[in-house]
């Protein structure tokens, strides 16, 4: 148990109620080993994003428990959960990641502020992070002036602002060309060597093949990866 940075038991997540009730997750058990590169795969609408949000403490499960680095999410109040996210988790979302009125640098500075980095250290750190994702020349660009791939890289830099042990990424390379994808993967490879735990939602079997822990979501449940590999 000590070896897993996040573990979930009997996870159920429902949205809405009555006629509009959606059961996005229907009883998920899993453990994410510390320092692993875990891929979550599965068809569209089967609950990958929902699972990722729960594993990152962005939402409370309807039933079941999520334990993030020894802390049980359901037992935490809003404030403690926010502070847990601020310290332990870096998110890269599937769709919207950036504050659009702020430049790349300012976006990262905002994350640094929330992570408690003092104002006078923010700029240097922000530029370092942007250089890390190969965007040293786009420091003052606003999201609207960046390509989709560049935006995702800013989002990754932003997710690293608080130097979190766990990175949760929801299809960060979903709409990148293969070159940009390779670049992102190189960044992630380095992060893995630094000992970060990376959870990566993807449709790409190629990326999934490089993972050291594969989780396949189907209809809100975990399916044997073997079956997935055979099927694909």
């Amino acid at each position, binding site marked *: 148990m000590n070896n897993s940075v996040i573990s979930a038991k009997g996870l159920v997540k429902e949205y809405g109620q009555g006629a509009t009730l959606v059961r996005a997750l229907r009883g998920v058990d899993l453990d994410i080993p510390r320092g692993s590169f875990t891929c979550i795969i599965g068809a569209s609408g089967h609950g990958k*994003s929902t699972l990722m*949000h729960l594993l*990152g403490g*962005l*939402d409370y499960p309807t039933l079941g428990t999520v334990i993030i680095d020894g802390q049980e999410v359901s037992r935490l109040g*809003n*404030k403690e959960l*926010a*502070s847990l*996210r*601020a*310290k332990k*988790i870096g*998110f890269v*979302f599937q*769709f*919207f*990641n*950036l*504050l*659009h*009125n*702020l430049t790349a640098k*300012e976006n990262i*500075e*905002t*994350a*640094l*502020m*929330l*992570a408690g980095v003092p*104002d006078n250290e*923010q700029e240097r750190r922000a530029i370092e992070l942007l250089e890390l994702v190969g965007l040293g020349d786009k420091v003052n660009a606003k999201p609207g002036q960046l390509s989709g791939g560049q935006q995702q890289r800013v989002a990754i830099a*932003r997710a690293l*602002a*608080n130097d979190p042990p766990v990175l949760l990424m929801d299809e960060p390379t979903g709409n990148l060309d293969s070159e940009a994808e390779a670049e992102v993967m190189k960044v992630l490879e380095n992060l893995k060597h630094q000992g970060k735990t990376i959870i990566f939602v993807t449709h790409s079997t190629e990326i999934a093949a490089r993972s050291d822990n594969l989780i396949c979501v189907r209809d809100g449940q975990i399916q044997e990866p073997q079956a997935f590999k055979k099927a694909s």
Partner: protein
Amino acid sequence: MTNTNLVFKSLTRRKGRFLFTSLGIVIGMASFVTFMALGGSLKSQIERESAALGANLVVTPKGSCAYEQVSILTGEQLPTNITKDEVAAIRSIDGMMAIPYLAERSAIDNRPVSVMGILPGETREFKNWRLAQGEYFSHENAEGAVLGSVLAEQFGLLPGSEVRVRGSQIKVLGVLDETGGKDDLTVFLSLPVAQKLYDQKDLVSYVAVRVDHLDEVELYANKIKDQVSLGVVSDKQMRNSVLSIVGTVNITLQIIAAVAVLAAAFGIVNTMMTATYERRREIGILQAMGATRTGIFKLFIFESGIYGLIGGVGGAVLGGLAAVFAAPLISQNAATSFVKGAQSSFDPMMFVGAILFSTMVAMVAGLYPAIKASKLSPVEAISYE
């Protein structure tokens, strides 16, 4: 990045909306401050005029009401129907001093001024006037005019120059020291000269009375009523009835201004609600990055508070300027004509008060949107497409 920076960047991202919402609260606060400032200066002006009159009792034409009383304090034209015999009867009462006035209007360079017919010697004593320049009336029916200091300065008149009153050229004899009241804006003539000029032979507008013993005001009021059938009011009654007329006008204006502020507050609610809706994804992102609900709430309250701050500062400056410069333009009726003489003093307490009030109103207006924003669930905010 700091919270303050973040708020300012959010505020100014929709420049048009920011401008119009700010304008709304600035205009609302400006009208509020204007009417507050006018109200304050009206009140002190009334008290000053009442003191400058130097009378305990005022005898007014029969059947005159509060409106005429306002006119006595402002120097407006009055019905002139107190006769020479009535004046003589009042003046025959012992133990008090009674001074008749003929209050008329004229214009110099098309600007209205008060013209007063007075008993030169007694009025000077009654009002404790001092002469700043030139000479005073040499006798009770001397020709020529003595001017209030502000009026002389406004029209560039000096002893020896001529002033045109009701078609006649009148020589300026002297200029009085500043009194701080409406006398500073008045042309004084000797009573007989004024009566002739205005065709009011043997008539006056009112009689100011000062009794020798203050505790006998009531008694003398009755003595006067026994002698003549005219209206008699004490200075206190007069001041109170004038204050209540002006106060009513003033409160009405302030209520209208308060409605303007309220409307502006709803403008802020509207702007902040729209912002909450527009930024719901960003609120989700901020929460994912570790912002607490309280943190989000503070960002939004801070943002609406800024509108209040802008409104307070802008409103206090504009309203203060309006009170000083626009006041003479609205002095068209008796209730507001006090203002023209008022030295609209700039009150720093009112400035601070306006800013605090406006900021508080804006923050209350921002309360609901800020609560809404802080209650957004990060997941719903982010997964929205």
